[in-house]
């Protein structure tokens, strides 16, 4: 046997398997099909055990009134009560609105800053590669640690942020609190999130810009297209698939945001920055309303799953480029 025929290919052709091929496989160890399954199985099994089995368990719990702080009570099935409670609860809708505002504002800012930086870096000035690496650092850090150290920077009296603002705006540094004021706190989490993730958008946009072949610009030059026109007709449309990818990914990540905001404002003041993940954490791990929080978790799952579906389609579209 000198040519390699994949067993499935042979099967797909519908022809009889070459005589003696089984013996050849045995001589060479396992068949390809067996190896394929042997290699994929451990990953799938781990994911089934750690992700899917608990998920199914949670779906079951979402139809119960289980409360872990009163787990002596018998498990009572309440049908869809948890779901109807959540979907008719004004509180939850407020949290979802807070989350939506956070997602929209922070992603929009990241796109503006990130795309702008990418356009500038793409001019390839000297030392651009060094500065790009510096700019990328924040996004590699732990969001929890970031949230924690920004609370120091935002301290009204001793923090450098307020001091700098006071120098520029001429207001006393203790006259405002970035994390403690209803009017400022929602912007504070947007600001820190943008600081952290604008580099992410920048990096992906940069890849998009670099994927545009030079000859398109050269042709545009020959046709005497203005730089403005070149931007709108070449640069932007050809970067949009990359931009979409970044936007989708950031939107999903920010929709489930927990760590950074939990440490920066822990949802406060009041509940002005209480994102839906923080609400979920409180319901599940402080009030121990497991049945109720399972239902809320499932609602979030379905939302993210839908978004992930679109995300993977976008990934594949970019991949084909």
């Amino acid at each position, binding site marked *: 046997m*000198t040519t390699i025929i*994949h067993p*499935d*290919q042979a099967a797909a052709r519908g022809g009889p398997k070459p005589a003696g091929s089984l013996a050849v496989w045995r001589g*060479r160890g396992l068949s390809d099909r067996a190896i394929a399954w042997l*290699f*994929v199985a*451990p*990953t799938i099994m*781990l*994911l089934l055990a750690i992700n899917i089995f*608990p998920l199914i368990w*949670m779906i079951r*719990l979402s139809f119960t009134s289980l409360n872990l702080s009163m787990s002596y009570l018998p498990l009572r099935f309440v049908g869809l009560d948890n779901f109807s409670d959540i979907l008719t609860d004004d509180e939850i809708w407020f949290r979802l609105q807070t989350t939506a505002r956070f997602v929209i504002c922070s992603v929009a800012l990241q796109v503006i800053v990130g795309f702008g*930086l990418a356009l*500038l*870096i793409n*001019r*390839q*000035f000297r*030392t651009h590669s060094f*500065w*790009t*690496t510096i*700019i*990328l*650092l924040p996004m590699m*850090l*732990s969001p929890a*640690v970031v949230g*924690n*150290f*920004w609370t*120091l*920077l935002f301290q009204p009296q*001793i923090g*450098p942020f307020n*001091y700098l603002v006071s120098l520029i705006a001429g207001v006393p*540094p203790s006259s405002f609190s970035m994390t403690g004021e209803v009017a400022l706190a929602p912007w504070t989490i947007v600001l820190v999130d943008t600081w952290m993730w604008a580099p992410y958008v920048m*990096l*992906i946009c940069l*890849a998009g810009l*670099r994927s545009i072949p*030079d000859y398109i610009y050269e042709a545009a*030059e020959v046709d005497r297209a203005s730089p403005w026109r070149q931007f709108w007709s070449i640069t932007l449309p050809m970067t949009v698939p990359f931009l979409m*990818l970044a936007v989708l*990914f950031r939107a999903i990540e920010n929709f*489930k945001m*927990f*760590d950074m905001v939990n440490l920066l404002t822990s949802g406060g003041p009041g509940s002005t920055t209480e994102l839906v993940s923080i609400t*979920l954490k409180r319901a599940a791990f402080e009030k121990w309303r497991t049945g109720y929080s399972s239902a809320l*978790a*499932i609602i*979030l799952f379905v939302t*993210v799953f839908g978004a992930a*579906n679109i*995300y*993977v389609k976008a990934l*594949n579209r*970019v991949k084909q480029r």
Partner: protein
Amino acid sequence: MTAIARSTAHSIVEASPRAKAVAGTIVILYAVISILPLLWIAATAFKSQSDAIAYPPKVIFQPTLEGYVNLFTVRTRQTPDFIAKLPPATTWYDRLVRQHDMVIAGPSKVVPRFINSLIIGFGSTFLAVSLGTLAAYAFSRFRIPLADDLLFFILSTRMMPPVAVAIPIYLMYRQLNLTDTRLGMILLYTAVNVSLAVWLLKGFIDEIPREYEEAALVDGYTRLQALRKVVLPQAVTGIAATAIFCLIFSWNEYAFAVLLTSGEAQTMPPFIPFIIGEGGQDWPAVAAATTLFVVPIVLFTILLRKHLLRGITFGAVRK
């Protein structure tokens, strides 16, 4: 931009020197401003308690190792008389602490937390990369029924909100006695990381020409031998980059760690915010912990620079 069109000295698509200078200035300004918070934290780690909470915030100060000493020790306040009666301090850190009428009572919990971070990080990375390499090889080389759906399934598990995943995991781990154990955290992080590992490594293995292996197979290697002796050596850079991404994820992870561990298996991220001194957060110690925690990440980022784009897009975008 108009300068680009008019200049003829260089390639049409290359920016003019003036455009480059403007771009450079803005980008460098942004980079410097965005790195300032990190530099501030690194500096705070070397401030004394009073310098750290001084108003106005101090840029120039007398550096001290107090923050680092406080991070690694537990101290008790004593009367000056009591301290005077003690045998003379033998080490520099004893002396430093006694200046503030304190005595070192023992080591703090930071070292065990750091070790937890290391064990859980390396354990889950090793498992995720091993499983991921096998699965990625299979997805890259063999025709697997419903491969696209399986790959989507693998990726979608990473998209789930961690707090939502933690609810059933908490219940399951309670039954299995895995709450607050390193094994439990390793398994959980492996499950999260394996999805990234499969996607990234599939991209790397796809790039290795099939012909190499096929030549090896013709020469009488088995599939496993071909994988070990031909594919793995070629994929080494990709495997290393993937491993670093997995390590960074486990190192940085907070939500699972704070919800599922409380002591024994607690890692650094949930520990750092709770480093407290007398009356609130001990900022120099917190800054010291943050610095020690962040330095490896900075080094890894520089190391990974070439593969960063791939890592953050699950292997979809390459240079």
